[in-house]
């Protein structure tokens, strides 16, 4: 493996790691409106949060088992689909997570600002 491709693989791994935590947040935010799996995936992709079904469906199941989502099977366009929506508990957790997300963003900005000053 060349140094360039090693570096690309490393960046890709770190990028995935960075995104993994924010996926839960993105899914919870998006499920403030009801979606079934495929439309949720499309909606997230529209905002640049591509997520494959192998990651999304297990995540939805986990969030549901944690009580943050509710789901129901319903027929739409002559096909049975499972619709997901954020639960009441989910909304409370989402509020806390968004606050935490903002704190992390602000902290990171401060650190960046500080290090920019330092490096000058």
């Amino acid at each position, binding site marked *: 493996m060349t140094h360039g491709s090693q570096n690309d693989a490393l960046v890709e791994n770190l990028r995935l790691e960075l995104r993994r935590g924010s996926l839960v947040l993105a899914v919870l935010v998006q499920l403030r409106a009801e979606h079934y*799996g495929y*439309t949720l995936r499309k909606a997230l992709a529209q905002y640049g949060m591509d997520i*494959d*079904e*192998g990651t999304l*469906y297990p995540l939805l199941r986990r969030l549901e088992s944690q009580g943050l989502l509710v789901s129901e099977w319903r027929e739409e366009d002559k*096909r049975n*689909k*499972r619709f997901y929506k954020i639960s009441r508990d989910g909304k409370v957790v989402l509020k806390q997570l968004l606050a935490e997300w903002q704190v992390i963003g602000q902290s990171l900005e401060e650190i960046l600002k500080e290090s920019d000053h330092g490096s000058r």
Partner: protein
Amino acid sequence: MDLVDRYLQAVKFWLPKKQKADIIAELSEDLRSHIEDRETELGRKLNDSEIAALLKQHGRPVLVANRFLPQESLIGPVLFPIYVFVLKIVAAFYMVPWILVWIGIEVSRAAHSGQSLITSVAAFWTTFWPMAFFMIGGITTVFAVLERVQTKSRFLEEWDPRKLPPVRDPNRISRANSIVEVVANLVFCIWLIGGMWYQTVLHFSGLTITLSPVWRYFFWSFLAVAIANTIASAINLFRPYWTWVRASIRLVCDCVGSVLFCWLMKANIIAAISVVNVAPEKTAQIAQAINWWSAKMFPLAIVACAVIVTVDAYRIYRVRSNAGPGIVLNAATSIC
């Protein structure tokens, strides 16, 4: 849609029984929506190759199913480093010595019986692999059981920082070791001078053992090495840090001692044995057998000496490459 059904069936095989139907229904819906979307984009039905490409993009069935399964490991992250450490210990202190001893025995056997190398290697594989397999398998099983116990009882989470071992300095010489070395070398010197000075080394209760004349050289050489080792260990006792000078002296002493020891194995050192009321032919046979077995042990002696010399050489390398805090602590006493 034949390909999609076949794909879903393959995924279904790996899923947990209770969730099979639910997960497959959802995956099926996702796949069919995806295909419909593509068909709307293209304005026509997808052909088999296009569906195959789309399924490939979704991932291998077993991997897709795996993401729905609870994440389990045979040995978890808490125990894994300990497991690897135990395997290394077993490899270093059981398997490697086992291989070295085997090499020694086989080299000796090949030299004496003319057995071919291929026969020896075949014999090695047939005995080594089952031994290694059961050893590694046994350790893995023990750790897998410990993992299950640990998951339930969390016994590894109970720990006290005050019980951690003190900081270890690899270049520090244990005073206890130095004392043992001094005493052992002195005892050896006394035994040499007191009991091995003459060629007839044992004359007791009708048993007489006489060594060959070459013993005289071994006597003086072993005595010189033992005295050098006693002095070196005494210095280590008062200056308990390895310096490269003292580590080199230890290497030289051990090299000389090793050469002497290996040579002794081949030197037919027992000249004669006599026992009252036993025929001289019989005692001659016993003396010959002792010398023969001693010579047979020559490869093992070489392996043992090689290990000792390697350890000594590594010590010099460690001291010279300034590894460990010992060098910093030892700066003031760096010259012997």
